[in-house]
């Protein structure tokens, strides 16, 4: 049924010709041309497709006109150009390449996904930014309760404050070595002159140190607002400054001890040492890690000074003074090992949680904008201030971060594990390199929580320091007992057991091996030591490395220690020797021993 009146071959019309040009070439009447152009334009097809449709419509109308039909009749048969265009567009699009249709489907999919994401994000953002915390507990007030119970007259802090105010400015010549200046040093005359100016301040410190409690409370409310002050802010507002002042006063007391020694002032020497020990107890007057850290550092100053004093001037302290010091040291931390407090850190965490999550009344809730930056700081902005990244990602926190209950549970598990380990003596600890969070929960999918990550390293480091200071304190008690024995018996005992029970309740343990503290006589003088880091008794000799004695007073998790012991000798400083507690082992600035 092929039309005989055709010529084979493609028509010489450009594929992408404009519809207007095609219509003009077809020579159609104006009304028909308008219909064709309107239809082609309304299809909104690709240019090549529009050209094809236009050509076909032109052909159609040209054939109709050639068959003798009137333009009006043809236009009426054609129908509404817009409706025709819609049908043509739909059909023509089906002729497009499969790859294009796939692309369109993909775009639609992505668009739908985006839309869903935007709606979901908007929902989460609304919940995140409109959620409000319920601050039910005033943790600062709770921590202040025992402090408030201390009578005004029994508080040391007011006197310490007065002492700080009464301390004159430290002369420039003393600043570099203040706290380490001894009789005979070039700065000594200036130090003595300065200490003379500090007489009133020193008297106030000693008075303060004699008080039962520190009595420094936390601010509980900001201004006149009714909401309890955030514990972290309350603590930051008080303790760093306060503890820094106490360390300042400690250095003053240490130097005054040497002044008293030079002046053969027995009462002054004992008074200064007792005051330092008391100040260490006062520093531990609140249950935060920072308090324990400062308390340990202050006690360490007292013990170092005492050890040095017993080495330089063993006859200076009389029996009453030695007994007073022994009683004061023996009572430190309740007489047992020096422990690190967790209550303050727990209160800090709980306070942060109550300000960072909603409260459903059943112990659960979701993270909200008010607290997300506290729990998950990006590190890109100041603490507590939201960065642009925080603002944008905050609403998603609820999708990836645990809720209130799980956050608290994870923290408590970690805290409990760490506290249990930290309460053990060094030789019994089993901390390994593995994440503490994983060990606490037994779940390897546990993500190290920011809170845990912040707390655990400082807690482990500080609890190790507490063990070391316990060992030093025990060593000082044995040293005093030995000196009292020597004065009574004319010589040192062959064994520490001889001191029990008259001068010691028991021989203290070596915190590194769990056995009794090591003791031997060398050149007629006692040597007190612990086996130290490597756990091996080397006869009371410190490791030969630079600062060897200091390095032996170090603890490593068992696995790390085994690894280190397998290293060549030059890569394991602190091994191959003991930690000598007494006599003092001194090093110059290059780590070379100067006491030999």
């Amino acid at each position, binding site marked *: 049924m092929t039309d005989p009146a055709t*010529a*084979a071959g*493609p028509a*010489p019309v450009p594929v992408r010709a404009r519809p207007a040009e095609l219509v003009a070439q077809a020579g159609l009447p104006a009304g028909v041309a308008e219909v064709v152009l309107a239809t082609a334009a309304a299809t909104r097809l690709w240019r090549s497709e529009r050209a094809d449709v236009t050509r076909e419509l032109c052909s159609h109308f040209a054939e109709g006109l050639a068959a003798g039909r009137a333009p009006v009749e043809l236009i009426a048969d054609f129908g509404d150009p817009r409706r025709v265009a819609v049908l043509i567009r739909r059909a023509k699009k089906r*002729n497009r390449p499969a790859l294009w249709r796939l692309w369109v489907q993909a775009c639609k999919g992505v668009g739908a996904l985006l839309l869903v994401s935007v709606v979901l994000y908007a929902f989460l953002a609304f919940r995140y930014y409109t959620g409000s915390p319920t601050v039910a507990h005033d943790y600062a007030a709770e921590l202040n309760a025992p402090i408030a119970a201390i009578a005004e007259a029994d508080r040391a802090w007011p006197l310490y404050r007065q002492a700080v105010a009464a301390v004159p400015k430290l002369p420039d010549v003393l600043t570099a070595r203040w706290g380490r200046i001894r009789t005979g040093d070039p700065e000594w005359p200036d130090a003595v002159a300065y200490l003379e100016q500090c007489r009133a301040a020193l008297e106030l410190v000693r008075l303060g140190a004699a008080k039962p409690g520190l009595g420094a409370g936390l601010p509980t409310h900001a201004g006149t607002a009714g909401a309890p002050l955030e514990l972290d802010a309350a603590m930051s507002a008080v303790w760093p400054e306060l503890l820094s002042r106490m360390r300042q006063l400690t250095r003053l007391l240490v130097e005054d001890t040497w002044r008293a020694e030079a002046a053969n002032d027995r009462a002054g020497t004992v008074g200064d040492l007792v005051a330092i020990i008391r100040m260490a107890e006062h520093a531990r007057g609140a249950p935060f890690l920072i308090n324990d850290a400062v308390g340990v550092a202050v006690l360490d100053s007292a013990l170092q000074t005492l050890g040095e004093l017993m080495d330089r001037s063993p006859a200076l302290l009389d029996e009453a003074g030695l007994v007073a010091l022994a009683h004061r040291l023996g009572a430190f931390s309740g007489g047992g090992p020096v422990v690190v407090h967790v209550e303050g850190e727990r209160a800090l965490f709980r306070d942060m949680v109550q300000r960072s999550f909603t409260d459903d009344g059943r112990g659960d809730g979701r993270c909200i904008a008010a607290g997300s930056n506290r729990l998950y700081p990006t590190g890109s902005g100041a603490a507590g201030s939201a960065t642009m990244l925080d603002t944008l990602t905050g609403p998603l926190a609820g999708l990836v971060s645990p809720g209130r209950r799980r956050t608290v549970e994870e923290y408590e598990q970690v805290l409990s594990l760490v506290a249990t380990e930290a309460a053990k003596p060094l030789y019994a600890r089993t901390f390994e390199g593995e994440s503490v969070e994983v060990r606490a929960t037994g779940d390897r999918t546990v993500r190290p929580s920011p809170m845990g990550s912040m707390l655990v390293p400082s807690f482990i480091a500080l609890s190790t320091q507490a063990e070391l200071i316990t060992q030093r304190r025990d060593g000082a008690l044995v040293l005093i007992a030995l000196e009292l024995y020597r004065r009574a018996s004319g010589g040192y005992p062959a064994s520490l057991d001889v001191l029990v029970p008259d001068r010691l309740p028991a021989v203290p343990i070596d915190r590194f091996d769990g056995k009794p503290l090591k003791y031997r006589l060398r050149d007629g003088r006692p040597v007190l030591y612990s086996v130290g880091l490597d756990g091996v008794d080397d006869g009371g000799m410190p490791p030969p490395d630079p600062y060897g004695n200091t390095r032996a007073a170090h603890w490593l998790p068992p696995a790390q220690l085994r690894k280190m012991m397998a290293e060549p000798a030059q890569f394991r400083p602190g091994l191959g020797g003991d930690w000598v507690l007494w006599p003092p082992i001194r090093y110059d600035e290059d780590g070379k021993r100067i006491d030999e």
Partner: protein
Amino acid sequence: MRIESELMRGAGPLAVLKLLERGEMYGYQLVEALARRTDGVLAMGQSTLYPLLYNLEAKGLIESDWRTADSGRERKYYRLTAPGRKRLAADTRQWQALAQAMQGLGIGAAPAEARP
């Protein structure tokens, strides 16, 4: 009589395929042939025919090319493809079955009372 669009939706493509069975045709020719050979029953305007042709083309049942007639007018000729022939055969069988079924119901046959 014009056919309702619902019925036309099934009948239109089959009618076009059937017309193209005997040889290639261009759009206006198809319009005319449909009107003429079905006494106007299956007459369809351009608004129906051209989208229908493009759909059949998209399904690969027909194909087309442009040529210039002796008259100088351009024409786009459509012809059946092999799949188009298969579809025509299959659809034809279905329509015949349908027609028989309708006749069984007395539709498309002589009035019931006129039957013996």
